[in-house]
């Protein structure tokens, strides 16, 4: 039986609620946003606190995000209930251990040239670089684009802001998006396109793109029966991959092809206890009937996208689901929320031979594989696959709510395979816990 096994708790933990933990894009460290107005940087190698960021915000830090592809320097953005976002920088020496030591001397020399008397102590210092003011109330989430120098922030003021970093520390507002009718709880970028997703207190998800010169909403995803707490895109590497083997039948091959055309799917988690997956309908198909019916003149037809609900993950959570993480390495999903559970799911071909050893899925796979597959071929192609619960842990943070869970590369001594991952959960008890997933 696959299981989720406790590996470590980062020390020292925060004395108040911790909201979210973000793994560094390439170093074995994570940043935890805490309600005590600090961010704690912990090591994934020894599970100790490495540094803290404090003094920049007047209220809870709700969220933090690492800038991708920042060489020689780590850049962290923080979003706070004080309505501002902060940008923090730190040279990367000391962050990477072991072999990188040679390079450490080199960069540290350079750094020393800039400010006088730079010593080891200063290297660990986080420098407050810039504050982004503009939102009217609490910032809930923020995310750097993996594609371009863009940062998205969102707030209880119902807006999403997109900031462009023109050069270091010079941020310009390029868009203020105000279509949501309630707090915007979460923003997430598409891994391969300039496409932004936002989740809201108005129970909807919106997608945003740049149309000629202006950013605008290109899709509205409705259906959730409560606040949408989290959105996240699937990793590029996982598009069209389904656990339990390659596509064999014609239908399966066609499904994989369609997924590759549509690109990464979107996942949303809600107060309604559900986790839903959405997929983009390919343009060719959407064009056909729509084009003839209503020629749209005021906006380019290509701009709007059609996204449909593709699947719901098995309903395991008994209370609001606050976060879920889609593994870039395995395509598995981990979720958590108010009920304190962490649940891991995976997608499989229906009727695949792997289903024998999974008790959760056995109901649908009683017949011989052939028959099962023929039956599914007559329904929508999407039912070729199914999501099953593969592991679950209760009371992950004692009796407290768990606010966030995310996959990260494993980096401690016990690491086995190169691509082994851990789960990191962040709770109301102020603790950040590390879990092993054993398939």
């Amino acid at each position, binding site marked *: 039986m696959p299981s989720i096994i406790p590996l470590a708790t980062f020390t020292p933990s925060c004395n*108040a609620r911790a909201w979210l933990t973000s793994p560094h894009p390439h170093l074995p460290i994570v940043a935890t946003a805490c309600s005590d107005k600090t961010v704690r940087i912990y090591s994934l190698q020894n599970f100790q606190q490495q540094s803290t960021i404090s003094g920049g915000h007047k209220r*809870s830090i709700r969220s933090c995000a690492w800038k991708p592809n920042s060489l020689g320097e780590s850049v962290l953005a923080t979003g706070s209930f004080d309505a501002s976002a902060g940008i923090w920088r730190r040279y990367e020496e000391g962050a990477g251990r072991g072999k990188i030591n040679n390079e450490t001397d080199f960069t540290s020399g350079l750094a020393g040239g800039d400010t006088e008397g730079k010593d080891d102590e200063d290297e660990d210092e986080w420098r407050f670089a810039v504050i982004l003011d503009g939102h009217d109330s609490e910032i809930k989430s923020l995310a750097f684009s993996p594609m371009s120098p863009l940062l998205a922030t969102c707030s209880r003021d119902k807006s999403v802001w997109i900031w462009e970093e023109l050069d270091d520390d010079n941020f310009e507002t390029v868009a203020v998006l105000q279509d949501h009718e309630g*707090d915007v709880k979460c923003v997430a970028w598409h891994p391969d396109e300039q496409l932004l997703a936002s989740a809201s207190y108005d129970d909807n998800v919106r997608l945003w793109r740049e149309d000629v010169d202006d950013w605008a909403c290109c899709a509205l995803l409705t259906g959730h029966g409560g*606040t949408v707490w989290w959105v996240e895109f699937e990793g590029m590497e996982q598009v069209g991959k389904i656990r339990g083997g390659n596509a064999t039948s014609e239908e399966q091959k066609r499904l994989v092809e369609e997924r590759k055309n549509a690109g990464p799917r979107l996942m949303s988690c809600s*107060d309604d206890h559900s986790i839903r997956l959405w997929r983009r309908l390919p343009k060719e198909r959407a064009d056909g009937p729509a084009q003839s019916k209503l020629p749209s003149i005021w906006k380019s037809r290509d701009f709007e996208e059609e996204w449909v609900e593709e699947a719901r993950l098995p309903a395991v959570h008994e209370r609001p689901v606050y976060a879920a993480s889609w593994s870039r390495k395995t395509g598995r999903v981990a979720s958590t929320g*108010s*009920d304190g559970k962490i649940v891991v799911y995976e997608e499989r071909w229906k009727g695949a031979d792997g289903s024998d050893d999974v008790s959760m899925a056995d109901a649908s796979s009683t017949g011989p594989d052939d028959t099962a597959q023929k039956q599914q071929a007559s329904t929508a192609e999407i039912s070729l696959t199914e999501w099953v619960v593969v592991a679950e842990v209760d009371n992950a943070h004692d*009796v407290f709510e768990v606010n966030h869970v995310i996959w990260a590369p494993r980096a401690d001594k016990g690491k086995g395979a190169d691509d082994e991952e851990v789960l990191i959960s962040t709770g109301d008890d*102020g603790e950040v816990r590390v879990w092993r997933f054993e398939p």
Partner: protein
Amino acid sequence: MDAEKDNANPTIINPSDLPSRRRSAPTATKQPGLFDALVPAYPSLAEPSSSPEASDSDSDYEPREEIDEQEVYDLISTISDPEHPLSLGSLGVITLDDISVVAPTSARSRISTVTVLLTPTTSACSLTTVIGLGVKVRLLNCLPPRFRVDVRIKEGTSQTADEVNKQLGDKERVAAAMENRNLINVVNTMLVTCE
């Protein structure tokens, strides 16, 4: 209105007829002033010990401690209305019948749920959200962390019930509200009358 309030006042006395339960509630919280503990629980004022200590002692309690509706009632019925110098119990905003405590739903779960339905004094009471916040904060601070606290407006009693329910159910909004100095002051004032 006034007469009604006066008549309702005696209901305040009822909770004090249950001394055993009234005594157990303050023991569980330990803090001398409950409203003092309220503020530091979110911002980092000088109270690093409050949450871990509380949780430790609470888990020690767990086998013995059974919290029932009456006890929840005792915790919140003495909260003052923000407009009147009267308790929520005496105004009928909180009634014993509208409190329910649900034990963990499965053997593995340790999470209990407390649901409180509020009856606003008028269907257009603008302070409903604040009253709900006071009740929620009081329970979050007094009950062991294994309790999930759902505070809602009783169906059919308020024009803005859905909106208020959604706000009170949103942990992020409640957390942010408790970092707002003005709201903290209002809530503290409401809770002063709780022992």
